[in-house]
């Protein structure tokens, strides 16, 4: 009887591996890291635009030797008024040119972070379903249960061989049933997510492209101001320092110009499409999925690096 049970186990295993959710574990983890890179690119890009904007403002004030004042929010004990609209910037302690409106803290505002957060949560949920660590925990628990049952049966003098084999079969059956259910849900939900992810990828690409263009525009004028101010540097050391900063700024501009946020977002969509196709295909297409995801991850990393770069001296 034990031999029969072992044969059944092997036969079921051969069928079960075709429906294992763990086959694409590494690819899905890479996909999740690519989405994280896009999220970092959004954060770095919007932060970079804000910093570039402030840097440009400082250069303009330095050039004109403007008279600078503090906002009323800098006063001790003063409760900042909940200003809205054009006066919202006065609610925080900052500097501004005297007798002129307080400049906006950021050059652009966007909710792309919310959009990419939805994608991150989805990618994390995919990674959780294909996580093999909890499967190992289940196997360990089932093994412990099987041993305990064998001990009980041994103590009452029954056939331990059959008890052990039955225990193994129950443990294997439970794990395989859960794996099959996981694969089924993974296949179904990725197919459902295909259309919304495609839409979000398209819009995220547009948003990242706009953020990239904003950074280039701000840095271009910063570089203009630096170039203009070179002749006014008091000494050679200051001139060299300003020149080095100018060159670093042009390098950052070039890195941003050659990055392609729309392509990075499109590659994310393509990689997900490959995954959906592979899950629906009985033959499995691990190599195709891996290649598509690798391309997406590389572009996302490059975009993140471009958005993070840039001097704002």
């Amino acid at each position, binding site marked *: 009887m034990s031999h029969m049970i072992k044969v059944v186990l092997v036969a079921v295993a051969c069928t079960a591996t075709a429906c294992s959710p763990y086959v694409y574990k590494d690819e899905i983890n890479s996909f999740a890291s690519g989405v994280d890179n896009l999220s970092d690119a959004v954060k770095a890009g919007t932060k970079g635009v804000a910093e570039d904007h402030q840097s440009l403002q400082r250069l303009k004030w330095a050039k004109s030797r403007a008279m600078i004042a503090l906002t009323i929010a800098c006063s001790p004990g003063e409760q900042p008024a909940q200003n809205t609209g054009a006066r919202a910037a006065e609610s925080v302690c900052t500097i501004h040119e005297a007798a002129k409106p307080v400049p906006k803290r950021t050059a652009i505002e966007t909710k*792309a972070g919310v*959009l990419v957060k939805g994608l991150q949560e989805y990618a994390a949920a995919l990674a959780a379903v294909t996580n093999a660590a*909890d499967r190992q925990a*289940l196997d360990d628990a089932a093994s412990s249960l099987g041993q305990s049952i064998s*001990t009980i049966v041994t103590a*009452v003098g029954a056939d331990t061989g059959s008890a052990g084999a039955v225990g193994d079969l129950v443990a294997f059956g439970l794990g395989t049933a859960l794996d099959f259910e996981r694969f089924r849900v993974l296949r179904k*939900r990725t*197919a459902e997510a295909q259309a919304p992810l495609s839409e*979000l990828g398209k819009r995220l690409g547009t948003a990242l492209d706009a953020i990239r263009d904003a950074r280039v525009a701000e840095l271009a004028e910063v570089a203009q101001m630096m170039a203009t101010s070179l002749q006014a540097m008091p000494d050679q050391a200051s001139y060299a320092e300003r020149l080095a900063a100018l060159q670093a700024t042009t390098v950052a501009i070039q890195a941003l110009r050659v990055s392609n946020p729309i392509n990075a977002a499109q590659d994310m969509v393509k990689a997900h499409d490959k995954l959906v196709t592979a899950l629906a295909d009985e033959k499995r297409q691990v190599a195709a999925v891996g290649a598509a995801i690798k391309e997406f991850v590389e572009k996302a990393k490059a975009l993140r690096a471009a958005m993070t770069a840039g001097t704002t001296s």
Partner: protein
Amino acid sequence: MTITFAEFGAFCFGVVIGWFVYFTNRYRKGEAQFSDITTLVGIIGGGALTALFGDPKTSSLFPAYCIGLAAGFFGYFVTLVVMVSKSKGAFTWSWFLDGRRRKPGEDEEILPDTRVTTAPMALQLGLGRRVSALEQGHVRMAAIANAPLAFESPIPPTPSPTDEALRVVDQAKLAVEGALRELMERIGQTTDPVKAEKLRDAYSETREVYMDLLQLQLKIVDDSPEVQAALAKLKVATDALKDEAARMKEAADAIATAAKVAALIAKVVGFLAPFI
């Protein structure tokens, strides 16, 4: 036939286990869960314990336990039948089939924290029973529907309002980008400082316009109904995947609990075995 004290004890033990198994099945939520395995451990453990007190092949303790198990299990059901028959019409036989009952009267209420039964009898098949072939067909059809067309469609799809708005902004951006390029070129070619300063001021003003267009582009994307709808649909898939990921952990926890119970029983059995 006389019944010994030991047999009566084994019978009562079985009644308790059987009653409890029916009780657990009656109050479990929805689909059968892997945590129900703990009730099986109770049944198996009970049987093993009776085997301690006599040779299972010749002693009548195990049969008495089994009879008690059946008596307890079906006794619960019989009790429900008796209570339904004496409910003065509040419950009828149809309650056993699909749980329907009459609404409580005006002077009656069911407190909100009352435990809800999922089924008075029979197994809950729930929504977990699906036809695999139909599901696979759904998945394949979804993949085909989302795949690019193999031929050029003669009629281009109508652009959405969002796409149309973004197209208009893109055209405006192209125009401003052209102006910025020209200004930068003229700044680089002039040696007159006054003229250069005026060109830089013009560049700065044009850049402000460009930034306004970029902000408009971002706002169109942020507020587009397509993005909101897509986020909502993606969240549904995300939540379903999270629930599925949690099931494996719940199953592992349930089995670990069952293993602890079984280990405890094994210790008791191991302790008592030398004395039998």
